[in-house]
């Protein structure tokens, strides 16, 4: 099937509907039929994944631009449209969401506590994420953004671990404080453009005065920056990761944080290019601080999930730095990093989740020598750690390479400091790997079985994703670049 013959079919809405229909079906299944609930969840996640893969395949990157566009007028008087489409920036994000949802559902196969509510909320969350990534109408982007945020509260507070209620409340309030800046910014731009359309590209054509762009961009950057864990608004993120159950950590760190960076890129930099230029130094500064700060704090942690949480802060700093360069390589790298980091963190949390479910601890000194008792489970974590360090042949290697080459050109000092930060992060990752998986074997964990073949599947899927895009980065970069090259001409 070619893209042309499918032109009339609303493929994007269908992808969105896989989650909403999944959610509705789950609601009508009696709560004691947990097996059926999980099967339905996995089925609808697989359909979503298949559709996203097809979409990725069918996207014509030679042509570039917005494809698979769907447009329906929603509210005429103030100009809201149901407007979806994909280009090189959101296509990798949709694929990422599908992969992480699929593996997340599978990873949680052993869940027994309030199963129905868990999967229902998870699908609601992912519906929001899909919605943000595919919408090109500011109203819908905001609606889906909020839909993606609030299920986090029950998901963490009910099924979470360490200090779950505190973590859930902190996370929810932080993120909604972010949307308290985003909504006024969106409405501000809408009103300045005459108040008759929320269509992203129509607004882009209208253009805004430099002053308005500076104001709006700052609000959007801070608002979305909270979700992207930009330093100093990152404090909710490690606490939230630690408190959340495994699949939620995966979706949260893997996909949800990307919404923040995506929002800055999609709304902020698209509508306020001059604002972005004006504030790019601030973005670069905060990104660099994030890289170094995340690595340094990560060094001092003893909890595996905190380690990953701070490494996420550090890696999201790379995304921020890449965006701040406002250059082809930098933004290419940032988008690629969003994808690579999403898959990598999902693998991290997935493998820690297995260890934690068995040992009921994630404190590094209490573990130790795990590679001898459960070699497969350990190998997943070690693989993710290598990807996190940015070893060649892993997807994140290319992403970081692109960002740093661009950064050293545009912000030499920040670029060099950020590189130093990456070395620090390599140090702390290796230290964690060494302490947890090698060294003295803790006899307490000897009886624990290794990962079964069934539960290994989602982790292997994630690993092969990292490896595939590490070996063939062109598959992704061609797509991203097709949109980024025309995009940077506006700065």
């Amino acid at each position, binding site marked *: 099937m070619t893209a042309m013959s499918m032109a009339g079919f609303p493929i994007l809405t269908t992808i969105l509907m896989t989650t909403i229909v999944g959610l509705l079906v789950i609601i009508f299944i009696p709560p004691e039929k947990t097996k059926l609930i999980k099967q339905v969840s996995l089925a609808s996640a697989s359909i979503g994944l298949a559709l996203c893969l097809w979409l990725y395949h069918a996207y014509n990157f030679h042509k570039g631009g917005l494809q698979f566009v769907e447009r329906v007028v929603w509210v005429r*008087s*103030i100009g809201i449209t149901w407007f979806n489409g994909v280009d090189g920036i959101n296509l990798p994000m949709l694929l990422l969401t599908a992969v992480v949802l699929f593996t997340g559902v599978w990873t949680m196969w052993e869940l027994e506590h309030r199963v129905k509510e868990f999967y229902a909320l998870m699908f609601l969350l992912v519906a929001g994420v899909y919605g943000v990534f595919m919408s090109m109408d500011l109203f819908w982007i*905001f609606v*889906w953004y909020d839909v993606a945020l*609030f299920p986090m509260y029950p998901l963490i*507070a009910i099924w979470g671990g360490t200090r779950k*209620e505190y973590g859930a409340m902190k996370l929810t309030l932080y993120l909604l404080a972010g949307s308290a800046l985003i*909504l006024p910014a969106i409405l501000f731009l809408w*009103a300045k453009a005459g108040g008759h359309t929320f269509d992203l590209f129509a607004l882009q054509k209208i253009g805004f005065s430099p002053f308005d762009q500076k104001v709006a961009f700052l609000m959007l950057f801070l608002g979305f920056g909270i979700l992207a864990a930009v330093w100093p608004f990152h404090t909710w993120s490690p606490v939230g990761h630690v408190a959340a159950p495994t699949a939620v950590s995966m979706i949260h760190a893997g996909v949800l944080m990307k919404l923040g960076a995506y929002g800055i890129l999609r709304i902020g930099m698209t509508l306020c290019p001059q604002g972005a230029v004006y504030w790019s130094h601030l973005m670069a500064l905060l990104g660099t601080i994030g890289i170094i700060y995340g690595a340094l704090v990560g060094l001092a942690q003893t909890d595996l999930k905190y380690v990953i949480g701070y490494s996420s802060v550090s890696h999201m700093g790379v995304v921020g730095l890449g965006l701040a360069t406002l250059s082809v390589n930098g933004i290419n790298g940032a988008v690629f990093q969003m994808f690579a980091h999403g898959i990598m963190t999902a693998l991290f949390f997935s493998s820690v989740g297995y260890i934690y479910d068995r040992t009921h601890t994630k404190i590094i000194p209490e573990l130790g020598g795990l590679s001898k008792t459960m070699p497969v489970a350990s190998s997943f974590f070690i693989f993710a750690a290598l990807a996190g360090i940015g070893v060649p042949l892993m997807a994140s290697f290319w992403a970081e390479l692109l960002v740093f080459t661009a950064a050293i050109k545009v912000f030499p000092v920040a670029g060099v400091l950020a590189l130093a930060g990456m070395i620090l992060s390599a140090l702390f990752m290796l230290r964690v790997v060494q302490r947890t998986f090698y060294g003295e074997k803790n006899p307490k964990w000897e009886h624990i079985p290794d990962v079964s073949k069934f539960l290994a599947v989602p982790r292997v899927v994630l690993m092969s994703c990292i490896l595939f895009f590490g070996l063939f980065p062109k598959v992704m970069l061609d797509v991203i670049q097709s949109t980024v090259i025309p995009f940077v001409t506006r700065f």
Partner: protein
Amino acid sequence: MTDFLLFLPELFFILGALLFFLFSLRKTPNPAGYHRWAVVIAAAGLLVTVACSHQDGMLFFNCYRVDLFSQIFKVLLALGTIWVIFSSGELKGIDSRQHAEYYFLIFVCTLAMMMLVSSVELLTIYVSIELSSYSLYLLVPMRRGADRYSEAGIKYFMIGVTASGLMIFGMSLLFGVTHTTYVPQLMKVLPAVITQPAAIVGLILALAGFFFKLALFPFHIWAPDVYQGASNQVTTYIATVSKMAAAAMIIRFAGLSGAASPAMIKLLIVLSIASMTFGNLVALIQKDIKRLLAYSSIAHAGYILIGILTLTTQGYASAMYYAAAYLVMNYSVFLVIMKVADDGHNLQIKELAGLHKRSPLLAMTLMLGLFGLAGIPPTAGFTGKFLVFAAALDKGYLFLVIIGMVNATISLYYYLIVIKAAYLLKPVKEYPAVHVDLWTRFMSIALVVMSIYLGVFPDQFLSLTEAAARTLF
């Protein structure tokens, strides 16, 4: 000759009230029978109001205008009334000897508010608002063990008469400045003289009576005590139905000055900010759920005012949308309260513990209602906030919108605490099972569907409110 048809909904409620007046004269009360009668009358009243919703005309020497604006609010009033009456099946908070009077006063009050939203002459407005206030003054202390709650009744009465005193004084000033009591005339004359202090003071004082009804800062002091002191059903009525009438009248009056009075707009902005911030901050520490909702209603009065103070068609339309959304969301929450506390006591937040096990449906209704109040999509509450803020930014009030959004975030904290109680807390003692009858089941699902439908597909209703707002000019 067909003029009386314009007055049909009101006539219908007059007849209903008369019937219950006769019932109240009987020696042996029959609560179950009264409830059935009340349901039938209120349901028929709703049907009549809906049937009359496209009428247009003037009555009573042009004191009384029937147009789309008034009819939409009448439908909302009738809808809220039937919801409250349906939930009065087990009116355990009120002595069974007073049930006939309870229904009588509810019908009179609805009648008065229907007259209020149609009145376009100052004295007619005053008479209508007093009629509705006096019914409420009687309803509030009507509760079993009234001496414990009599403070609420007295407080409500004292503040109410103060507000109406201010209001009639303001109206007299308006008459003095403009030599007319007709609202359409005032609209023509007032913008020319609005620079005179007497005109501004008159207009603001005239608004005071409606601010009192809406529980807007600084006329909010009665709300927490009255919400707590009145029986659950009466609180529901005050919190839902009477707010509709107040919102309608503020919309009608705020536009009187035209757009030419910056002082007036500044004052409204200050009141709106004070109301939102005060309501939300004090709500954070409440333990009694009705008190919490009282403070939340103060905050919501502020949000509605944001739409109104833009003085644009779009702003009025968004405020009307917000009011309708507020009716749905607030009633969802009160429905759950009335059911969980079906013996009529005041519900504490911690008593909701484990509600998701005792009744999953009510827990979900409560959650969606509270998410609506907090302004989280895809509920009508979110779309309402979005529209109100959009209208405000169209006039360039960026700062006001940021404060509004910060307030929405603060409010989320205390709504989440209630949701947490329903979904997470383990009950400290065994609470009696919640009895959910078929009607409640149906109503819960209907409210959830309504809230989401209005939120996701606002276009139809919004164009209706826009048409209604245009009739104001």
